[in-house]
């Protein structure tokens, strides 16, 4: 098992593609928890998370031959999870009314400064994200909780990298505003 842990996602995909189908189980276990949290973030439907998650993994397996090797596997699987979640909650109009859960407790960054910034942001997010638009909520969650880079978020949400930065910046401003309103009430 430890040997398998050392293998990258992309290599694991190659092995599965070459016939070792049982290895897909390990791929699933790697992403099960992360995707569960991510799907719940988007949909906020606790009872349906497992169903969506299963459907995501089945889609991933089915479409493994289409996986673009130039992309990171994690971005690809998050993209599928994003699509499945959005399909469930419907149009962007409905998305605005979907709130975010408050049970995040994952993720760290490399440097101490980054870690501190992230921790502060996470704490702020915990109490203030309920009213955040999904268009800001998703990049913020991917950046602070799923620890994705701008490029990865760009691949997951299929938006230009510079827009990721803009959305995160605006999201942070919105979080501050919401938090301030909460405190001053």
């Amino acid at each position, binding site marked *: 098992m430890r040997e398998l842990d050392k293998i990258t996602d992309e290599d694991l995909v190659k092995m599965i593609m070459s016939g070792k189908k049982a290895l897909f189980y390990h791929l699933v276990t790697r992403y099960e928890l992360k995707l569960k949290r991510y799907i719940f973030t988007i949909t906020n439907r606790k009872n349906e998370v497992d169903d969506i998650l299963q459907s995501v993994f089945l889609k991933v*397996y089915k479409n493994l031959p289409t996986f673009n090797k130039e992309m990171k596997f994690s971005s690809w699987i998050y993209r599928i999870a994003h699509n499945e979640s959005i399909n469930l909650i419907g149009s962007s109009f409905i998305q605005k009314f979907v709130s975010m859960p408050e049970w995040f407790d994952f993720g760290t960054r490399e440097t101490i400064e980054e870690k501190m910034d992230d921790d502060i942001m996470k704490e702020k997010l915990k109490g203030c994200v309920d009213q955040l638009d999904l268009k800001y909520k998703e990049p913020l969650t991917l950046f602070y909780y799923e620890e994705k880079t701008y490029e990865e978020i760009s691949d997951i949400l299929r938006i230009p990298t510079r827009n990721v930065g803009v959305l995160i910046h605006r999201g942070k401003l919105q979080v501050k505003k919401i938090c301030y309103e909460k405190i001053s009430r």
Partner: protein
Amino acid sequence: MKKSVADAVSEKIKKGEVTMRSQISIWAEKLRLNGSMVVLVALLIVVTGFVLYWINTNNDLLFGGYGRPGLFSFVQSFPYIFVVIFILLFLLLTHIFRAFDFSYKKPFFLILVLVMAGVLILGWISIKQPMGQRLYQQEGRIFRMGMMNNSNAITGIVVKINENGVLVGNEDDESVDISINSDTHFPFGHPKVGDQIRSVGTWKGNVFAALGIRVFDETNPSILGPGMMQGQGQGQGRGMMWNR
């Protein structure tokens, strides 16, 4: 005990309930996506060609300076349907574009602008080609493009010339009296019997008072005339874009 997602997924794979997509289906999807892009771009070029061909053959209305009658005639006969089709096709192209990875990795709007420019240029080139001209003439008739016989324009072949006007036979085999006065403008020379003409003006009872008359003849460059419309495009004549 409830199975974990990993167990449930693995079981389905083991049982063969879920299988990986075949290479054929992946290629078919790629082909469908790329094929529809090519078809859409080709359609956009053709639609652009129709509109440009119409403008090319009716530019006397655009630049003739015939005032309101000229403008009204232009507005009434403009092939709006092709502009609507162009917009719809372009929206569809934009939608399909988004399926490609470059849609978010490269400047999307710049690509769309370049595609639009390319389509306009190729559409313009197509109206200069004999094959394109034949297509636009032939199909333009089916779409009733140009419909120049409206309240401010008459097209037809001169059958008689009077002192104060000309008598033309239009496409419906009807004769129309066109009156000419000293202010009537002849940017392409005076008509003679047998010439194809288009006149911009206003109706005064049963007589059409011409503000301007354009004569189409062999010297008119790049425009294949009504002869092309007869006998599956075998004619040699040049002239206006025949209206029906």
